């Protein structure tokens, strides 16, 4: 269970403190799949970083009783001068996972071949996306956090990602944030809309989608 109670987050700006998230309440049970819709700059990524624990809320409480992934985005959080394998080794050490055990999966999934032993600096954006996704699948979590998924890579890569995430790990919880509703429609049980720092719950994904449409007008 992940439980957010009255979470607020504000950032300092030149015009003073700016409230980005305002009294967010949210509960995610094991196996539940939640979509959060919101426009660019509505605070989606901030919310994901709060849930992941990478940043701390200004006030309120976040409890996690299941293991929660880091925010999976395809930019990476890589160390540019390290090789793909060194990046994997680092993540395995951080999460206490056996490195040798996951190398075959990463080799197979990324299809990077000799490039796994080259610095990430020399990767194309597609190669980076493949590595980033493989690294996050190499560590098993009860809940995956997904920030604007899978606009990169070719269709084959896209399919492989979908297979790993939605077939093989269909028993896990998911929190997906996106400004693109189709992904949320296809994969989530319920949806929320984030507008002006407030999170609104909706009865169904369709209801949330309709509300989001009116917000876009």
């Amino acid at each position, binding site marked *: 269970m992940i439980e957010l109670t009255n979470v607020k987050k504000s950032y300092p700006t030149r015009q003073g403190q700016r409230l980005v998230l305002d009294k967010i309440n949210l509960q995610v049970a094991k196996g539940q799949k939640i979509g959060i819709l919101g426009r660019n700059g509505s605070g989606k990524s901030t919310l994901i970083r709060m849930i992941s624990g990478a940043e701390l809320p200004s006030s309120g409480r976040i409890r996690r009783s299941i293991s929660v992934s*880091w925010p999976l985005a395809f930019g*990476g959080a890589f160390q540019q*001068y390290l090789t793909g394998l060194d990046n994997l080794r680092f993540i395995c*050490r*951080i999460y206490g996972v056996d490195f040798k055990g996951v190398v075959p999966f990463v080799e197979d999934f990324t299809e990077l071949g000799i490039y796994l032993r080259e610095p990430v600096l020399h990767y194309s954006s597609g190669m980076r996306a493949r590595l980033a996704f493989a690294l996050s699948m190499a560590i098993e979590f009860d809940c995956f956090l997904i920030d604007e998924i899978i606009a990169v890579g070719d269709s084959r890569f896209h399919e492989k990602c979908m297979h790993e995430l939605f077939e093989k790990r269909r028993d896990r919880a998911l929190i997906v944030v996106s400004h693109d509703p189709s992904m949320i429609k296809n994969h989530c049980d319920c949806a929320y809309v984030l507008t002006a720092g407030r999170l609104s719950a909706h009865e169904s994904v369709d209801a949330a989608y309709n509300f989001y449409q009116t917000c876009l007008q």
Partner: protein
Amino acid sequence: MAFEHDTSFIESLRIQLRVIGALLMREIVTRYGRENLGFLWLFLEPMLFTLGVTALWAGSGIRHAVSLPIVAFAVTGYSSVLLWRNTATRCAMAIPPNMGLLFHRNVRVLDLFWTRILLEVAGATMSFVVLSTVWISLGWMEPPTDVLRVLMAWGLLAWFGAALALVVGGGTAHSDMVERIWHPAAYIVFPISGAGFMVDWMPRTFQDAVLWIPMVSGVEMLRDGYFGSAVRTHYSAEYLALCSALLTLAGLVLVREAGRRVEVQT
């Protein structure tokens, strides 16, 4: 603001040690690479510097009234500077290049600082030990007379360096100004840090003034352990420990605040 931790202390400690271990390995590989001499640079760098300083001093023919072996004097002096200067300099602006790592919940801002502090202290210690061993075996330097006191002085100086690094590192997270001030400050403190003189050479009035500088006590204590009764030293280990304790406290507060306010970005 309340933070609840369901994790027990032991479990938290295990996680933190694991994370710092991972960061250490990563830092060594990114800084020194896998090729050439690799992580040997960790202590070859300070070693080369100490060698250069020793050569300069020996070559310039400075003969002090005190019959002090110049090599041992340079080694003890410069090595102790490394302990506080390198740790603090490496911790200044340590967060931005490591921002991506903070995506992982268990990597906290404090861990980034511990990692760099540990690496610098380890580097300075290795260079001190290796250099001393080489010079002693070549007969250029006498072995220390009181090893225990040397170890204690070294430990105190390392603590001071770590505490200063937390303050400087935590400070730079709040304002870039701290980094700008730190560099000139380090240059100004260097000549009065006790590395290049003995307190006993000073006039009486200066002695009291210079002993307010915490690292002076550390270097004097180190030399007391090294040269024993051959030199007269003036220091207060208690004063150095007190300064380190206060700096540690201030540093931890600064780093905690930095961790609360950090904005994680790729």
